[in-house]
């Protein structure tokens, strides 16, 4: 009956679309831009977007802002005192403290992820 065919068609299309979404997300995340390249791209962004002008990456000493060596090994972020999590670092990049400029409009979401991956590796 046509109603049964409708049910089968709906299920088939739903499974196909969700599968395509999953497969292409996997391809994009692991094949075209694998995660281990994030940190590398993040290191380029750290320089090109001007972060290196204010932050050391090989020291915890203050340059203009706090040094970032071992940032993700710390318990708290240096300025805000927030717990060191990916979410909080992202929030601080978007709505920073004191003189640090906001990077909400300067970095795409993907670039922000790459930068965070780089900071994790420090």
């Amino acid at each position, binding site marked *: 009956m046509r109603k049964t065919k*409708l049910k089968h068609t709906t299920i088939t299309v739903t499974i196909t679309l969700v599968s395509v*979404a999953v497969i*292409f997300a996997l391809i994009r995340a692991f094949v075209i831009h694998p995660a281990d390249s994030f940190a590398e791209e993040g290191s380029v962004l750290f320089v090109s977007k001007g972060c290196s002008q204010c932050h050391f990456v090989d020291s915890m000493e203050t340059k203009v802002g706090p040094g970032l060596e071992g940032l993700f090994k710390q318990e708290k972020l240096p300025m805000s005192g927030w717990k060191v999590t990916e979410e909080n670092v992202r929030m601080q990049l978007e709505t920073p403290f004191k003189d640090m400029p906001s990077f909400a409009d300067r970095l795409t979401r993907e670039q922000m992820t790459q930068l965070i991956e780089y900071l994790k590796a420090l």
Partner: protein
Amino acid sequence: MTGGILCIILYTGFVVLPVILATFLGSGSERFIPELGKNFGLMGFMILIAQFILAARIKWIERAFGFDIVIRYHKNMAVLAGCLLLFHPLLLAAGGRGWQLIAGLKMPWYIWLGKVALLVLLLNIFVSSFQTSFKLKYEKWRLGHDILGPLIIVMAFTHSWIMGDDLELASMKTLWIFALILAIFMFLYHVMIRPWRLKRCSYRVVDVQPETENVWTIKMTPPEGADIYDYLPGQFHFVTFYRQMNLPVEEHHWTISSSPTEEDYVSSTIKALGDFTSTIGKTKKGDRAAVHGAFGRFSHVLHPEEKDLVFIAGGIGITPFMSMLRHMRKTMDTHSVLLIFANKKEAQIVFRDELAEMEKGGHPRLKVIHVLSRPDEDWKGETGYVDREKIERFCGADPGGKVFYVCGPAPMRRAIIADLRNMHVPDERIRMEIFSFLE
């Protein structure tokens, strides 16, 4: 069915296209979870665009499936889009954007716009799915649906245009603009352009014939020099009557009760069931009617190899069968047809005399069995409801090569289809069409 498969492939390709473009042409990427969230967002948007195409009564899509199936698919896909778009922010939040994306109040206006679009979409889906439970009238629901649909798509477009990283790609921008224009054009064509064209070439009411206490047959003829649109017996059409000033102007769909062999007129037999149809008897000769037809696949003509038919009609559900029977009579058809016609009372039997004449005529070889659920004391025929016992008694316990057509109120239709399945009648031999879009 080849057309149907082609439609489904085109539909799927249309929905996944932005995901393919973003994956292979996009400059950067995130990890799996946020990428999945983005893909759900892209696909959800494309499904919403395609909703406008499905609802626009495109003939070549309708022909492949039948309009009732297309509308139900539209409903199913709305639920799928709602789920994908609900998971879109959840996956982005879980994938690193932070739960403030969901719970936070301080955020840019374009994120709020996306949130509002999602809430309005979910509200629209909820109300549309449960409109009968809310006792929401069809016209009011349709007005709300016609306002909310374009509103959602414009909000979703704006949100994704500003927010979407992949929308930085020229190919994605082009696709997004094309999709928006397509949706808006489909919407305007459906609600404004086509109704205006149909009104310009409106039909004229040439006869209003009372059938029973609250049932009328309205015959309409096309404008001079024009032919009646092509239709099959058993199909339905959309009609907007333009009558006296104080009578409502609303588009409704009714089954065609005339046979396509009638060259002068097309007719619908309409029962006063709701607010609008209660005024149907006030329709006068000379009134105008914008007619859009024909739709549906509930027709024996589409299955010429099937010769042994059982029609089961409930009340005004007789109308598509009358169209088919009249066509068979006119074409000297030799089909064998058993018509089981259920009504509450004897006085409510529509077309009783004409059916009796057809029985004697031999074309088709017709047998009519009336079943009344609330008969008067002097009724000698069948009583009660049409159920398995009656169907087996009338058709034999083994329905063999018979094909069953069922049309009537939803509870009756569901009960009979359940009975037929219990009798091991295969689904391919049960035909029905859901005429109410509210079910």
